[in-house]
C-alpha cells in the first residue's frame, strides 16, 4: 500500500499538548494547531460510543446531503383546514408539545386570539376558560404536521398557509402568513385589531396570493434565499431583501389576479419587512424534513421552542424531542420594555438556523448586527464558530463577506458536545404577559442538555 503521508512534505494538525506543537515549530514543520477543550461535562463516554457507531459517517453524509440538495419551491397558498385537515378546536403551536397549564404568556395569548378568530369564544375570558378546561380543544406541535410557525406559531383551521414543496425529494411543508410586527397574534397579542387583521388575511390576502401563485407557477425559494443572503439578509431577523424580491416576483401577477385588491395586498406585503420569513421557514422546514429518519445520523433536523422549553429532533432518533428550559434572549428592547418583560425563547423560526440561515448566516447581515447586540466582527465570529458544529457548507446559500463561503449547515450533536459551542440563534422577543406582543429582538443560546440528551439517546440501540 502507498501512504500519501510519506510522499510529500509533512503538514501536521496538532491537537493537545502544546509542547509537541512547539517541537514541530522548532523543526519549521508547517502545522495548524487545534484550540481543543474538553467536551461538555459527562459526555465523553457517550461521544466515544456514538462516534464508534459504524453507521454514523455515511448516515450523516446522506442526511446532510439531503438537507443541502433540497429544492424548496413556493407552490401555493391554501387554508389550513384544507391542507392540514385541522378541525375546529384543534390548534397547532410552535416548539415541542405543550399543555395549556405549562404554556407561557404569549403562547396562551395566541391561543386565546385564535379561539376568538375561529369564533369559538366571544371574549378572551371565555376563550381562556375553554382552553383551560380543555373541553373540545386539541393542542399539538406544528412540527408533527410538516408545519412551522414563528413565535407562538399558533395555527388554526381558518388561517391561510404558504405551501412549499421540495422539488428534489418530494416533501411538502407549511407555514402561516406573516401578520407584521408589533401587536400580532404570534407574539401573544389578541386584541380586536389582531383578530381583524387575521380575518382580512383570510378573506383577502390568502385568496389573492393563491390566485397570484396560480398565475406565476412555483417560485424557486432556494434561488430567492441565495439572492437575499447576498443582499444582506440572514433570513431570520432580517428579511427585507427577501421580501423585496418576493414583491418583485409577485407584483405583476397580483395586479392581474385581483386588480381591485392589488393595492392593499401589495401595500400590506411591502409594509412588512418580515413577510418573507414564513415562506423561508417553510423552505427550511421542507429541507430539514428531507434529512429525517436516517438511522445512525446525529444531524439535528429541528430546533423549536414553545416559550417554556427548547427542543430538538435528530435524524437518527425519529420524532422524539430532546428538551431543556427555554432561555431568555439577550438583545435590544422596544420602547420602555426591558429584560423583565421578556418571555423565554419561543417559536419554530429556529428552523432557519437548523437549515444554515439566521444566526448561522449572521455574517451576511451586517446591517442588523447592532440590533442583535454587537458589531460586524461579532457577526463574522458567530458564523465562523458555527462551522465548528456543522457537517457541511451550503452550496447555494453563500456569504459574500466570507469570500462567498457557503453558510454552515447541518448541526451535529456530537460536534456540539465536543466543542461546547451551542447554535447561535437570532430571535424576536415576546412579552411575557399574554396580550403584550413583541418587546424586542436579540440572540439566545439553546440549553446544552437538549443536545447531551440526544447524544445519550444515540448510544442506545
Amino acid at each position, binding site marked *: 500500500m502507498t501512504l*500519501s*503521508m510519506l510522499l510529500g512534505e509533512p503538514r501536521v*494538525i496538532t491537537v493537545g499538548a502544546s509542547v*509537541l506543537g512547539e517541537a514541530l515549530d522548532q523543526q519549521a514543520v508547517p502545522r495548524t494547531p*487545534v484550540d*481543543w477543550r*474538553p467536551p461538555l461535562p459527562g459526555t465523553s463516554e457517550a461521544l466515544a460510543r456514538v462516534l464508534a457507531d459504524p453507521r454514523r459517517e455515511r448516515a450523516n453524509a446522506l442526511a446532510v446531503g439531503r438537507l443541502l440538495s433540497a429544492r424548496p419551491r413556493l407552490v401555493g397558498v391554501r387554508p389550513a383546514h384544507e391542507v392540514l385537515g385541522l378541525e375546529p378546536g384543534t390548534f397547532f403551536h410552535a416548539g415541542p408539545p405543550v399543555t395549556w397549564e405549562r404554556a407561557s404568556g404569549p403562547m396562551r395569548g395566541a391561543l386565546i386570539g385564535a379561539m376568538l378568530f375561529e369564533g369559538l369564544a366571544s371574549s378572551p375570558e371565555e376563550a381562556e376558560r375553554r382552553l383551560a378546561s380543555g373541553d373540545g380543544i386539541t393542542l399539538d406541535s406544528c412540527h408533527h404536521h410538516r408545519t412551522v410557525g414563528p413565535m407562538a406559531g399558533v395555527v388554526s383551521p381558518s388561517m391561510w398557509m404558504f405551501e412549499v414543496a421540495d422539488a428534489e425529494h418530494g416533501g411538502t411543508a407549511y407555514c402561516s402568513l406573516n401578520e407584521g410586527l408589533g401587536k400580532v397574534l404570534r407574539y401573544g397579542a389578541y386584541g380586536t385589531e389582531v383578530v381583524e387583521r387575521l380575518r382580512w388575511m383570510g378573506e383577502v390576502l390568502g385568496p389573492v396570493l393563491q390566485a397570484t401563485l396560480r398565475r406565476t407557477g412555483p417560485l424557486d425559494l432556494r434561488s430567492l434565499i441565495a439572492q437575499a443572503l447576498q443582499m444582506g439578509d440572514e433570513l431570520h431577523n432580517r428579511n427585507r431583501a427577501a421580501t423585496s424580491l418576493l414583491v418583485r416576483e409577485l407584483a405583476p401577477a397580483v395586479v392581474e389576479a385581483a386588480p381591485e385588491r392589488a393595492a392593499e395586498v401589495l401595500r400590506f406585503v411591502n409594509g412588512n419587512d418580515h413577510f418573507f420569513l414564513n415562506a423561508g421557514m417553510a423552505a427550511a422546514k421542507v429541507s430539514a424534513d428531507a434529512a429525517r429518519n436516517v438511522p445512525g445520523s446525529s444531524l439535528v433536523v429541528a430546533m423549536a421552542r414553545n416559550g417554556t422549553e427548547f427542543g430538538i429532533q435528530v435524524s437518527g432518533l425519529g420524532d422524539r424531542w430532546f428538551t431543556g428550559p427555554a432561555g431568555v434572549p439577550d438583545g435590544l428592547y422596544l420602547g420602555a420594555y426591558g429584560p423583565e418583560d421578556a418571555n423565554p425563547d419561543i417559536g419554530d423560526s429556529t428552523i432557519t438556523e437548523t437549515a444554515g440561515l439566521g444566526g448561522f448566516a449572521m455574517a451576511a447581515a451586517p446591517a442588523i448586527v447592532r440590533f442583535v447586540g454587537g458589531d460586524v466582527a461579532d457577526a463574522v465570529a458567530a458564523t465562523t464558530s458555527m462551522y465548528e458544529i456543522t457537517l457541511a457548507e451550503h452550496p447555494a446559500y453563500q456569504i459574500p463577506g466570507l469570500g462567498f463561503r457557503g453558510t454552515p449547515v447541518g448541526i451535529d450533536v456530537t460536534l456540539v458536545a465536543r466543542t461546547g459551542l451551542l447554535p447561535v440563534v437570532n430571535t424576536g422577543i415576546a412579552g411575557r404577559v399574554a396580550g403584550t406582543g413583541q418587546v424586542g429582538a436579540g440572540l439566545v443560546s439553546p440549553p446544552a442538555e437538549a443536545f447531551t440528551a440526544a447524544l445519550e439517546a444515540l448510544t442506545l440501540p
Partner: protein
Amino acid sequence: MSDLVEVRAGVYHDSVSLMRVSQALTARTGVEVALVAMATELNVDLARDLGFAVPAATGGDLLVAIRASGDEQLENAAAELDRQLVAGSPGGGSPARDALPRTTRSASRAWDATVALVSVPGEHAFAEACDAVEAGLSVMIFSDNVPVDLEILLKDRARDKGVLVMGPDCGTAVIGGAGLGFANVLRPGRVGVVAASGTGAQQVTSLLDLAGVGVSHLLGVGGRDLSARVGGRSTTQALLALDEDPATELIVLVSKPPAPEVAAAVQELSLSKPVVRALLGPGQDDLTTAVEKVLGALGVPVPEWPSWAAESPPVSGGPLRGLYSGGTLCTEAALIAGTGEFTDFGDDEYTRGRAHPMIDPALRLEALAAVETGVVLLDVVLGHGSDPDPSASLAPAVEKARERGVAVVVALVGTEGDPQGLRSQAARLNEAGAAVFTSNAAAARHARLLIGAS
C-alpha cells in the same frame, strides 16, 4: 504565609503547559509552592496533601493553588499566572485565537494537512483521531489510556481509508524528516523503522545515527499493536507502506515481545525488502545488538558506542534501582541486569493527569532522592518534545546521590543533532558523577557490574 486557592470552571490548558506555569511560579522569590493543574482527582489530592483547602471541582476545571510568603508576593504570582496562561494558549493570546479550529475535523477542512498529531487526554483522543481518519489523514495518537476496542475500530477504519493509525500511546514518529512526539534529530537515510515501542525506536534510530546511518521514516504503531487483540493491524500497514517507499532499503521492526500468532502473521507478509527484527524479550537480541545486525546487513562498520565513565565509581554493591522514563528501555535494562527493582514512570498509572516523565521529571527526581544505597540506573531521552535541558534538574540530583554513596548510571538516548546537545548533556551528567552510556544495554551491563552481580 498566604494561600490562594481557586477553581476556574471550564478553563482548559494541557498538562505540559500547566506544568511549565507551575514551575515558573514556584521559581519566583516569595512563592513557596504553586500548583496550577486541571482539577483531576490526582491533582486535587496533591493540592490537599500540600495543605490547600480545595473546593469541589471536576476534571474539566482549572485548579490554582499558590502559597507565598506574603500577600504582595501572592498577588504578583497571581498576576504572573494570568499572563502565562494567556501566553500559553494555542494562539498565544493573539486575536487570531478566535479563528483557530476547535476540532481536528474543522482543522482538516480548513487546511491541507498530511497527518494529525493527537495528544489530548486519552478519553478524548478517539474523537480527534476519528476526525483525522475520516478526513483521509494518517494520525499519530500520542495519548495513552485509549480503550483497546476503540483502537481496533480506528485501525480498521484507517485500513479502509488507506491511512495509518500510529498509536495510541505512540511516543515517536519521524515522517519525511519531521519528528512527531518525542523524536531525535536523525539524518535522512535508507532505513525504515516500524516501532511498537517509542523509546525502543529512539534507541535504535539514535544508535544508527551515531553510526552514520540515516532513517527514511519511523512509523510508530502503538505499544499494543502486536498484541493478540490488536493483531498487528498497523504494523502490517506500516510494513507494506515502507516496502513501497522508494527511500527505504531495509526495514527494522522494533517491539516488545509480540503475541506469537501475531508475530507469525507479520512474518508471513510478502515483502520485497529485508526486515531486521528487534523484538525485545528473554533470549532475544538487545536493541544495541539488533542495531549492530542492521549495520552488518548494510555493510557499515560497527562503531564504539560513545560512553563516559564515572570518575572513581564507588564500589557499592547493594541493591539496583531502575528509574526509567521509557518502557522498552526499562524492560531491556531489567532483562540485562537480571535483578533489581525497576519502575517505568512513563507507564499509564503515572501519567494520568500529568505530563510524561520525559517532559516532567518531578516524580523520577523524587524517587531518585529516596534511594539511600546501591546503584541507580536511569535513562535520559533527548530529542524534540523532551525536556529541553534534562541535566539541569538531574545533575544536581545525581551529585546528591553520589554524596549519599549511591552510584548513578545513565543511559543517554540521543543524537549529535538533538537540540539538547548529546555531548553537553553527557558531560554535565558525567561531571556530576554519573557513568553515561549511549547504549542502554551497555549501561545496564555496567550497572550489573557495579552491584557485583555475575
